């Protein structure tokens, strides 16, 4: 078990390095001059060159990469071109905000999806299953940015019961899960974000449960006189690790892919930070945010892998 864990962790290192190369190289695909966003339209070329030197954009690319990597490993991701604040503090702050809604969405999706998926798996092939599968397919197919807009119109503008944007009534540092007045800002984003994981987790649960229930030993259990609830519990326990893995992956996916929802709800998370950085060509923030998000994803995948192996020894990949 530990050698497997060790091997997996070691294996993640070249992946991480490859990720840094891509993050770094990504921004050089960009047209336009990053200095422009800092300067007024009539700044002279001398001023541009001066600023370029100040921020180190005039050196050859491999050297920039090496310097950047060394600093990144020690936690210094540079300072934002727009705000002058250290990137690491902006990104970590945004990340904790994103984790709030991602975790909420995945938990909401998981609790609903697991129950519905189990029911669907139990009644596999019958009308109930087909109806529930339809729900899961709907969840996966709906464009969640559209759903977010619809929810804002219905609940915020028409009914006025939930806030339309933002995180907390006086900014994100007043947000608190324990205070209903603040926590309600998270309701619409969480519900919107949970649609896709709902569909995916439900699909996985259904197939896992159906698979287990189709096994011969279940027939044996039933023949022995085990009650239906116990049988279902059996199936659930078997399916759980697999579904947990999917849930973990979905969480990682949401953290990295929440940009559209955060734009609509003005939720100050990493997606929002990223979209602003793209618009303003704030390269240090762009690189830092993509790097942190990708690393989170790698770490989540690794954690899910290890967790799955720990719980279910049947799963061993060479």
């Amino acid at each position, binding site marked *: 078990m530990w050698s497997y864990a060790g091997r997996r962790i070691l294996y993640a290192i070249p992946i991480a390095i490859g990720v840094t190369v891509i993050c770094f190289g990504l921004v050089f695909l960009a047209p336009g001059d990053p200095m422009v966003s800092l300067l007024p339209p009539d700044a002279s070329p001398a001023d541009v060159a001066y600023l370029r030197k100040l921020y180190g954009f005039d050196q050859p690319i491999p050297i920039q990469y090496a310097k950047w990597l060394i600093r990144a490993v020690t936690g210094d991701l540079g300072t934002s071109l727009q705000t002058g604040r250290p990137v690491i503090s902006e990104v970590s702050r945004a990340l904790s905000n994103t984790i709030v809604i991602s975790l909420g969405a995945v938990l909401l999706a998981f609790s609903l999806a697991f129950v519905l998926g189990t029911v669907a798996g139990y009644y596999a092939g019958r009308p109930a299953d087909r109806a529930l599968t339809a729900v899961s397919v709907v969840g996966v197919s709906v464009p969640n940015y559209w759903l977010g807009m619809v929810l804002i119109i219905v609940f915020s503008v028409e009914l006025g019961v939930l806030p339309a944007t933002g995180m907390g009534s006086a900014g994100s540092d007043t947000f608190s899960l324990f205070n209903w007045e603040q926590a309600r800002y998270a309701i619409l984003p969480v519900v919107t974000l949970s649609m896709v994981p709902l569909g995916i987790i439900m699909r996985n649960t259904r197939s896992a449960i159906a698979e287990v229930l189709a096994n011969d030993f279940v027939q044996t259990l039933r023949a022995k006189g085990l009650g239906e609830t116990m049988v279902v519990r059996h199936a659930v326990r078997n399916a759980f690790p697999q579904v947990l893995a999917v849930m973990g992956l979905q969480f990682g996916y949401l953290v990295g892919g929440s*940009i*559209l929802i955060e734009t609509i709800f003005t939720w100050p998370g990493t997606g929002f930070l990223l*979209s602003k950085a793209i618009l303003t060509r704030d390269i240090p923030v762009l690189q830092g945010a993509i790097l942190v998000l990708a690393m989170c994803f790698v770490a989540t995948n690794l954690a899910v892998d290890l967790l799955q192996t720990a719980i279910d020894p049947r799963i061993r990949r060479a």
Partner: protein
Amino acid sequence: MTDVTLSSGFAAPAVAAIKVRGYWGTVGYRLRYDYVTLFFLAVVLLIVLAAILAPLIAPFDPNKTSMVYRLKPIGFRDFRLGTDELGRDMLSRLIWGGRMSLLMGLVPVALATAIGGTLGVVAGFVGGWLNMLIMRTVDIFYAFPSVLLAIAVSGVMGGGMVNGLIALTLVFIPPLCRIAETATTQVRNLDFVEAARASGASNGSIIAHHVLGNVLAPVLIYASSLISVSVLLSAGLSFLGLGVEPPTPDWGLMLSTLRQAIYVQPLVCALPGAAIFITSLSLNLVSDGLRHAMDVRI
């Protein structure tokens, strides 16, 4: 008890001849009674047909603006589905937008299947260090959540249709490559491949005759499920302003520009989103149905 006499012509109970269908026959049989899949297959065909025949069936020019008829509701005079913020007919724009959306749905997946599939087959077949190289590179791209990668690549390249296509292709290559590689590796070690090699068949013919047959099914099924993802992602890119330029009709772009008018005609503004939803849903259901029918395990 049946009386069985062993002389010529024994009397056996009348048994209906069992029809032997073969693989594709089974698939067709399964599909014939899968009403849901058939229905949504019809929907997909309808959407594709509408997109192809757009110049013939769209009632108005999708780009013709008219300040007088701005933001009219559904069913207003000749404008069956209302008009947008510049007075253009929504129905025509939705039909033409279908072209763009289907294009952005199909092309990246097709390209990624070709590229990723080839890479995967090569990696699986050759094995060794080439396999390591290709699969590790693919793993690195796999380390990015797809939305993030698509937006990052498209965003830094400045948006636009071509950049969006490139970004989406890049996003879909890793999973397809992996599937192809797994399938190829499974086949590669089987006895009949060894036998073929022993009897002098060239690598090319081994691939063509044995490997591809095994690889095509899972790859194509997976690719078909990716089409709906591609439609959603490309609409998302357009929504963020990273897709096609206006005034090209495109569902994601329409959704984004109509957002401003959501207080005037909420129903009209919801139409592009509904179109994306229906397309994505139909593609998903069809791909699921095909997977069941072809009994492919991915």
